[in-house]
Every structure is written in C-alpha cells, then in structure tokens.
C-alpha cells in the first residue's frame, strides 16, 4: 500500500513539475505580452494543483492529516485571475498611450465593445447599468 502511495506521490510530483516547467517555457517562447499571459497563469494552475495533491498524499501516507494545501489552492484560484487581469489592463493602457515597446500580438488591436462605449479601465463605470457599483 505504501509503495503504491509513493508511486502516486512521485507521479504527481513529476506531472506538476512538468506543467510548471511548460508554463515557464511558454512565458519564454510565446511572442507578445497577451500570449505570454497564457503560459504562467494556466499551465501552472494544474502544475501547482498536482504538487499540492502530492503533498496531501505524502503526509497522508505518514498518518498526518494535512489540509493546508486545500487552502493554498483556494487562494491560488482567487488570486491567479486577478493578477492576469491586472497585467492585461496595464497592457491595454500601454497600447492606448503609445508607451508600448513591442509589436502587436497575433490577435492585433483589441476591439472596442461598441461604437460609443469603451472598456471599464478607460472609462468610469456608467450610471444606471445594473453591473455598476456607481448606482447606490
């Protein structure tokens, strides 16, 4: 039983490490900011997930009940989209102000939501839209 658990732990560690490595490799080799964002925010979620699962199994096999890993993945899932979102917004601003120093990505210029509207990072949320917190 213990050997089986050890094998599972080793497999999960290898899988996790591989995904973290691939995510970092994506950061290096993808062409521009927006594409690069996909590497570390994504491939890394599963990578870290596998590493944390390996940690749970490892301590489980030694009879120690450990749940810190669950908490780590919870915080990771909450924070990862936010940091990606912040980087994307900074990228939008750098484009608009002309401060960008890199050529356009494959996707080209980001479109506008509608003829007269704009994205929330450029414009204060409009009054009287349901999603706006400016209402109350």
């Amino acid at each position, binding site marked *: 039983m213990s050997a089986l658990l050890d094998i599972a732990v080793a497999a999960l560690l290898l899988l996790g490490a591989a995904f973290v490595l691939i995510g970092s490799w994506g950061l290096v080799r993808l062409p521009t900011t927006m594409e690069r964002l996909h590497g570390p925010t994504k491939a890394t979620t599963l990578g870290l997930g596998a590493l944390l699962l390996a940690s749970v199994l490892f301590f489980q096999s030694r009879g120690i*009940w450990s749940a810190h890993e669950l908490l780590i993945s919870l915080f990771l899932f909450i924070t990862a989209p936010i940091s990606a979102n912040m980087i994307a917004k900074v990228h939008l601003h750098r484009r608009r102000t002309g401060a960008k120093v890199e050529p356009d990505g494959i996707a080209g210029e980001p479109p506008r939501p509608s003829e007269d509207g704009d994205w929330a990072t450029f414009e*204060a949320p409009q009054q009287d839209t349901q999603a706006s917190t400016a209402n109350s």
Partner: protein
Amino acid sequence: MMKRILPHPALSAMLLVVWLLMANGITAGGVVLGALFGVLLPKFTEPFWPDRPRIRFGRALLIYLVTVLFDIVVANFHVAGLILFRRNDGLRSRWLVIPIALTTPEAITVLAGTISLTPGTVSADVSADGRFLLVHALDVPDPAAEIARIKARYEAPLLRIFR
C-alpha cells in the same frame, strides 16, 4: 432575529471552514474561534455589500464547480500542447468580445475568473456599461463558436446560480 446575528450565513460558514483549514485540525478552541470570526466579520463588513445577489447553493453550483475543475484539467493539457508543439505563426490568437447577460458585479466577476482560470482564455476587461467582456484567446479557429461555447458552458449555469 437570525438575520441580525448572521446577515451573511454563507460567508460565516466559509470563514469557519477556512479558519479550521488554516489551523490544520479540528479542535474545540479552533471551532469556537472560527465561529466567533464567522459571526463578527460579516457583521462588521455588512456596509460593504449593500445589495449582494442571492446565491443558490445547490446542485447547479456543485455541477458548475465540477465542470470548471474538469475543464481546467483538460484545457491545461491543451495549452501545454500548444506551447510545446505549435509554432508561433500557427497560433490563432484572437480578441473575443463576449456579450454578457449576467447583471450583478459578483456574477460577472465569477464568470471573468472562470474564463481566466480555464486555460486558453484570459479575461482582460469588462466594458464600462457592463455588457461585454474582453477576452484574449490563445488559439481559436472560430471566434463565434468559442463565444457560444463560453456562454452555454459557464454563463448559463451562472445565470441560474445568481438570481
């Protein structure tokens, strides 16, 4: 009466669970302290969420969580494959403008977070009128189909969960 002591029961329950996880064990002291936080923190933060949406905790939420977790795993392999084996000039990166039917800020945040967590798509921004999401996709052959997929797979359940 119940509503005055526990204005936000879900938040209270979550605080208790997170506290116990942080303590890494269930002890009488931990439960008491966690329960205390569960009662006090929602009380003190009540002014910060004036008209929060009601969330249905039920099958729909559970199915949604399982779907998202499953998609994260599957799509991770997909993105890893793209990073390893696709040449840069073969990537079909695109900006997607997704019209959203969700209306509450909380629901839109959950949708944007889900889109960012499932690999291959990052949500970049929401429009100022709250009706569109700007999403960057790493490799999408057909933007219209991808938008329809996101709307059907993530937005439709969220519409049922947040009312």
